């Protein structure tokens, strides 16, 4: 087991009377890719929202960091992003009026410093930083295969490209943990193949990934470990091959076997 990067313990989140997350434990190690699966409404996105500070859990600890892991519960989303957790969204949330390149440049925000005065005076430092952000963004667009669309408005991209743009934006902040929320949803088979290839590339750079995905043909090949949520509870965790045959997982997805006369 690699050195843990993200440690979640006793995570509990309630929406009114519904327990969206019920005492969930999950660990993502350095350089590890963990798949998070489960039926709709199982609490997967809620878990992402708790980790990124969008939601505040009722109970539980979320610790993140390479050497000394510190609690992130109670921090604002931008502070958590600064610490090195980046995410994408299930329903793609781009800065739709901005250009493709600018969207990715936005991702470098936590790694840059130009403020009001240096931007107004356009100091040498500000120019240098702008150039650095631009180069970095272009490199990432190259990686996700969108370099040719750099100057287009983000909203004008087809769906599959918007997903890849969102990943590039997340990578621009140089995160150590990447949360991908159903990156394959709505993609055609070719695009899914491209996505798999992209995830492999990201893994090769040593990033840890926590991946929510329904498509087993995406989760199973890239995940080192898979955790299964159902009704807010973690019901199983293990290697992709053991999870696929786990009776509790099959039950959660397909329902209980009813044996009896037809």
């Amino acid at each position, binding site marked *: 087991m690699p050195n843990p990067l993200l440690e979640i313990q006793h995570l509990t989140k309630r929406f009114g009377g519904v327990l969206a997350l019920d005492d969930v434990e999950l660990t993502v190690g350095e350089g590890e890719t963990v798949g998070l699966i489960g039926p709709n409404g199982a609490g997967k996105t809620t878990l992402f929202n708790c980790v990124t500070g969008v939601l505040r859990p009722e109970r539980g600890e979320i610790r993140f960091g390479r050497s000394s892991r510190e609690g992130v519960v109670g921090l604002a989303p931008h502070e958590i992003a600064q610490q090195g957790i980046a995410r994408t969204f299930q329903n793609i949330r781009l800065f739709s009026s901005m250009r493709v390149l600018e969207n990715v440049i936005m991702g470098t925000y936590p790694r*840059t410093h130009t403020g009001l005065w240096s931007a107004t005076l356009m100091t040498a430092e500000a120019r240098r930083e702008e150039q650095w952000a631009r180069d970095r963004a272009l490199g990432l667009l190259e990686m996700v295969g969108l370099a040719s669309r750099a100057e287009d408005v983000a909203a004008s991209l087809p769906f599959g490209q918007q997903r890849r743009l969102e990943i590039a934006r997340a990578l621009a902040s140089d995160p150590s943990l990447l949360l991908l929320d159903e990156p394959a*949803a*709505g993609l055609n088979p070719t695009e899914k193949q491209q996505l798999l290839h992209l995830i492999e590339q990201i893994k090769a750079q040593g990033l840890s990934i926590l991946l929510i995905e329904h498509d087993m043909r995406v989760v199973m090949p890239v995940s080192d470990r898979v955790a299964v949520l159902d009704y807010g509870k973690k019901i199983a965790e293990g290697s992709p091959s053991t999870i696929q045959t786990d009776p509790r997982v099959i039950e959660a997805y397909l329902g209980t076997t009813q044996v009896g006369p037809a």
Partner: protein
Amino acid sequence: MSPTRLTPQLRWWILGLLAAMALPLLNPNPYHLDVLTTALLYAILALGLNLIVGLTGLLHLGYAAFFAIGAYTYGLLSLYAGWPFWLGVIPAAAVAALFGAALGAPALRVRGDYLAIITLGFGEIVRIVFTNLDRWTGGPNGLLGIAHPQLWMPGRGVLDFGVSSTPYYYLVLITMAVIAGVCMRLSRSRVGRAWVAIRDDELAAACTGIPVLQLKLLAQGCGGAIAGIAGAIFAAKQGTITPDSFDFILSVMILAMVVLGGLGSIRGAIIGALFLGVLPEVLRGFDQYRMLIFGLCMVIIIRLRPQGLFGTTHGKQSPAPSHAKSAA
């Protein structure tokens, strides 16, 4: 961002500025210059409000209050402490910026319509406070005898701007050009992009590492400072300010200029302000039908270009096609 080079766009800006500089030499009609000065003052306000409404997407209905705060700050400093204009404009900008940020801190916890109502209330409160603090502000009669700007000219001694039109025209034109330049640099910088990111998608902006509240306060502060500068110039030009110069209608007019020009567009804000500032004067010949035609022009523009003259955003767009949900 490429360092400032002589792009075609920049060439148009310089050409426009030179033409505006030459105008008083070709047409020294003081009435025309006065109308243009007022319109350019509106342009400064529109540029400031554009940072708040256009870039950051915060609907602000009390922007005239910052204009008032700037005007009264300089007015009071001039009357009670004898500060000259060039010195008084600095605290005018600073105090207005401070109020912008101070109002923002509690108000920015709400969004959209609610923020609009709070800012509307703020605008009215400021006006009413200036009306009722009559011990210092002269109440409804306002401040009288605010010093005009003075400028030392080589070889010509001290020039008092007095009540002539030309010096104010140049003062406002140059201030407007400088502020437009600052706005342009800001809008293409890390800060300006973060503002637009917040407008486009606040949640995504926060998760991308943008301190949303801090940047909203910064936008309000910058917008406030710009209105404060405009206010100081206004007070220095008029020599007299009364609370009713800063009413709700003015806030709405400036907002209309920004929307007409196109939210987020800098040349849009300027053109919108010049258009709405000059049009009522051009239409004076139509006498009582003047505002009717003015309204008709607005309706036609909104019908033809809902995104504004130079706008690029077409209202709210959903970034993801609808099949994202069904496939999830």
